[in-house]
């Protein structure tokens, strides 16, 4: 499963104000638990402040990979990108669990050009040509971002849940399509295939627009990379974790920033 790295187009969508937390990128499936023998899901994909309101930028779909219950890759259908959101459909032709992932690997840089602070985002291979030779204070960061959601037709299975071993990833202990209000789910975070201890995970429920409190919770991974979430109410939830380390594979980059975000549906009891 190798996503195409068309960072330049994704960069347009993710070239956001300075703070990494200013906006949230998300996938929103029309359903996550499906029955019947001809199931489809339609998915919204956007970058926004409010979950899951499309009000800022569409998420580009160039790096979208849909993994089928047997581990093969299936093509999303009817992709379209509008002013505020992208949409695509997935035909769940076989029973089991599908993983929908947008995975990107890009570079951001900050530097001073004639005394003026500049920022740049793009592909690693364009660094040399697009940043002036005389740039001072050049700081380059590699950004690996993984954005996921899961849907299941019929009986859930685990094949599509297998991690790639690259970057920050979620390993479900509780199946992501078996989440119910008032119950506790457990997940593990890995960095490059090994447990990521002491990472903070933000957990937010959609629909903030219609309430006065954001209701954001946080969890922290233990030494085995494990964290638990008790879902107070049913709804669509978005979780995100971030880590930085010095393991950049882009030679100009000292730092590597890893982001994992996922959308989970929590059903009523």
């Amino acid at each position, binding site marked *: 499963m190798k996503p195409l790295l068309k960072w330049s187009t994704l960069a347009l969508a993710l070239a956001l104000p300075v703070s990494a937390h200013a906006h949230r990128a998300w996938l929103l499936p029309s*359903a996550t*638990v*499906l*029955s*019947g*023998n*001809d*199931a489809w899901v339609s998915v919204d994909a956007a970058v926004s402040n409010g979950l899951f309101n499309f009000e800022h930028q569409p998420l580009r779909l160039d790096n979208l990979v849909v993994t089928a219950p047997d581990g093969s890759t299936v093509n999303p259908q009817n992709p379209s990108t509008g002013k505020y959101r992208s949409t695509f459909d997935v035909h769940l032709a076989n029973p089991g669990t599908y993983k929908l992932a947008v995975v990107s690997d890009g570079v951001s840089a900050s530097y001073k050009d004639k005394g003026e602070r500049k920022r740049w985002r793009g592909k690693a291979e364009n660094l040399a040509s697009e940043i002036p030779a005389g740039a001072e204070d050049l700081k380059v960061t590699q950004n690996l971002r993984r954005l996921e959601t899961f849907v*299941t037709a*019929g*009986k*859930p299975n685990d094949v599509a849940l297998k991690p790639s071993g690259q970057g920050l990833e979620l390993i479900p202990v509780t199946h992501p399509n*078996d989440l*119910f209000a008032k119950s506790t789910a457990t997940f593990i975070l890995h960095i490059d295939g090994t447990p990521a201890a002491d990472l903070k995970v933000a957990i937010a429920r959609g629909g903030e627009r219609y309430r006065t409190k954001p209701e954001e919770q946080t969890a922290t991974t233990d030494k085995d990379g494990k964290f638990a979430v008790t879902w107070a109410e049913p709804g669509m939830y978005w979780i995100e974790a971030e880590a930085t380390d010095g393991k950049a594979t882009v030679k100009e980059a000292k730092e590597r920033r890893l982001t994992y975000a996922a959308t989970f549906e929590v*059903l*009523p*009891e």
Partner: protein
Amino acid sequence: MRIWVTLGATGLLAGPALGADLQVQVEIPKLDVAEYHRPYVAVWIERPDHSVAANLAVWYEINNNKNEGEKWLADLRQWWRRAGRDLTVPIDGVTGATRPVGTHTLEFASDNALLKDLAPGQYELVVEAAREVGGREVLRIPFQWPLDQSTKLEAKGESELGAVSVAIKD
């Protein structure tokens, strides 16, 4: 109004019952709503660990050429989670068409295939109803199996279900 569950038609109820029958009654209430569709209903027996000991009835839209009624089975969320997603419908003697407003009686002879392997112990009868453009409700009645001849256990729904009971009938 008494309606015999599909079991009657499949012959599982034929002949005199060897012992007492298990009788389950499920009331589908009349609702004053703008758009009414008959609810999907599932009736099953759960063990204390929530595993399913027996599926007694599942009523859904079966009179549909393209089997489109199966698309909404997942709306019986608890049943779908505990049993439905592991099964293939239709299930002979269990699945049937949606039912109208009224009290529906299901009777199972003690030698019925669904019950004969039910080990003595603690169970819950679970009834879940989900209605198109409507709500969803789950009722649970804890019981000890085998049931005492004289007991009739009852629960009362608040929205999508009316009175639900489980009893032994001679």
